[in-house]
């Protein structure tokens, strides 16, 4: 097969474009999640959106609305249960998100839909319908716009919530904004990589960038670049491997992370070995 072959199909080109857009949004948000220590939160919410997606489908609402509601429910329920029990937060979260995910699976099998379960779990970037494309686009652009507008407040909130509060920022509101952004991003990425792998898109680019730079603005750029590159090459490779594009995208990201982990100029394995000498 010729190496330019994938570009002859419009569905491949579309997939690469959507991948790049979704990758950018996920990457920007991943910087905040990684710094805030919210990786598990990303995993939890991505699973917890399933019942919301099915529910929204039943009610004829945009899937994003349902996803947002159950995502938020997962986060607040975790906080509430944690405050009223001796069990630790990560454990509580594990129970709640798997519970919600299971509920979603049961609902899904009981509901007649024209959506394939595999497409929700693993994404369907090669066959996204027009209406879904628009939803992805809207979710992505909105999320990106809000994050970039509030990027300094969100950064301060992640870095030093105490200071943020003493100077009069509404940290409670910022918490919910960050949660809402997370839910929005997950919805945007759902079609591309599916529920099971979206968490990779939400943490790996931020980790790669954190290893490569010491300034936040550069971190945003590096994360976005690494994410776009891995989404586009992932889709491209999947054509030749005849494999799921979402999985290929995540795999490329993991490879980039491995490279950064070893070779990062200051914070890589080799660099710190050299320092310890």
């Amino acid at each position, binding site marked *: 097969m010729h190496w330019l072959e994938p570009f002859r199909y419009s569905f491949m080109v579309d997939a690469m474009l959507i991948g790049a857009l979704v990758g950018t949004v996920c990457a920007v948000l991943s910087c905040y999640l990684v*710094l805030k220590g919210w990786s598990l939160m990303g995993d939890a919410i991505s699973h917890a959106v399933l019942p919301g997606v099915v529910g929204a489908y039943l009610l004829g609402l945009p899937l994003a609305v349902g996803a947002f509601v159950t995502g938020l429910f997962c986060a607040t329920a975790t906080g509430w249960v944690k405050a009223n029990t001796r069990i630790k937060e990560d454990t509580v979260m594990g129970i709640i998100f798997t519970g919600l995910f299971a509920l979603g699976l049961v609902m899904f099998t009981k509901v007649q839909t024209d959506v394939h379960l595999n497409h929700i779990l693993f994404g369907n970037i090669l066959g996204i319908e027009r209406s879904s494309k628009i939803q992805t686009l809207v979710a992505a652009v909105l999320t990106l716009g809000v994050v970039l507008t509030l990027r*300094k*407040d969100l950064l301060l909130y992640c870095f030093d919530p*105490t200071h943020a*509060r003493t*100077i009069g*920022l509404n940290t409670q509101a910022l918490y919910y904004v960050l949660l809402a952004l997370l839910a929005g991003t997950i919805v945007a990425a759902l079609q591309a990589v599916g529920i099971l792998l979206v968490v990779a898109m939400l943490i790996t680019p931020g980790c790669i960038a954190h290893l490569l730079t010491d*300034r*936040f603005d550069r971190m945003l750029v590096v994360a976005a670049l690494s994410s776009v590159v891995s989404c586009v090459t992932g889709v491209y490779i999947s054509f030749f491997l005849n494999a799921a594009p979402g999985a290929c995208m995540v795999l490329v990201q993991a490879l980039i992370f491995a490279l950064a982990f070893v070779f990062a100029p200051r914070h890589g394995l080799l660099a710190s070995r050299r320092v310890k000498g």
Partner: protein
Amino acid sequence: MSDASTPLSIEVTDVTVAYTNGNVALRDTTFSLHSGTVCALVGVNGSGKSTLFKVIMGFLKPAKGTVRIGGRPVKEAQKRNLVAYVPQSEEVDWTFPVSVWDVVMMGRYGSMNFLRIPREEDRRIVRESLERVGMSEYKDRQIGELSGGQKKRVFLARALAQRGRIMLLDEPFTGVDVKTETAIIDLLEELREDGHIILVSTHNLGSVPEFCDRVVLVNRTVLASGPTAQIFTEENLAKAFGGVLRHFKFDHTDLPGSARNEVLLLSDDERPLLLGQDGAPKRSGVGTKTGPLVEDSRK
């Protein structure tokens, strides 16, 4: 913005704070501070020092009693950027990708518009604040690349940049070199001259008489508060610390007129406190200032 002409005060009246699990962290706590003071907040771990900070910062609502800053509710003080907080080093994530300049600029956020785009004035204030703590040359460093003392000074600079006239410092001397400790104390004395109120939470007993003109002793309530010389006595400290303090008595019998030279050393594993025979606290001195101490005890 803080207005330099309004008289400054913190008034904590009859405050009781209970956590949701029913633990009472502070009971019937009352004290007040006025413009131009450096006050030590002294007590064992878990005595309610950080709870008191949280109440003053408005993070915790007292179940009973009131906190007023400059005669107004805490919320208003917050809006006017009046209270600045300098965190303990352990509370900060030092791997965060921000530079010294970025952190100090965060002190200005409260007076910027919602996009937080710095104006020339903000930059000038950040430059001045960095200068004042002697950190100008490190402004482009990532915060993790600093020594313990330098890290502390960055957050002091942020409090200066915020122009808060009330500063809360949480254990400012932990993990700090002697040079920084002296620099911090000098800075606090300057701020006192400017009329600031500075509340320093510490269990570094020895340095308290050196730079604090007032002391608030806490153990789940305020045990005593007032001028250092009156409050910082063996009896009060024993009340505040119970059996936690190490206690040594020295009798310099090799000196002429020896009985008068007995000193008492109190320590909780940090810098010890020396009490003379009259029970008054001695300045134990920082670094080079240790000399006069010996002379003091011979007088």
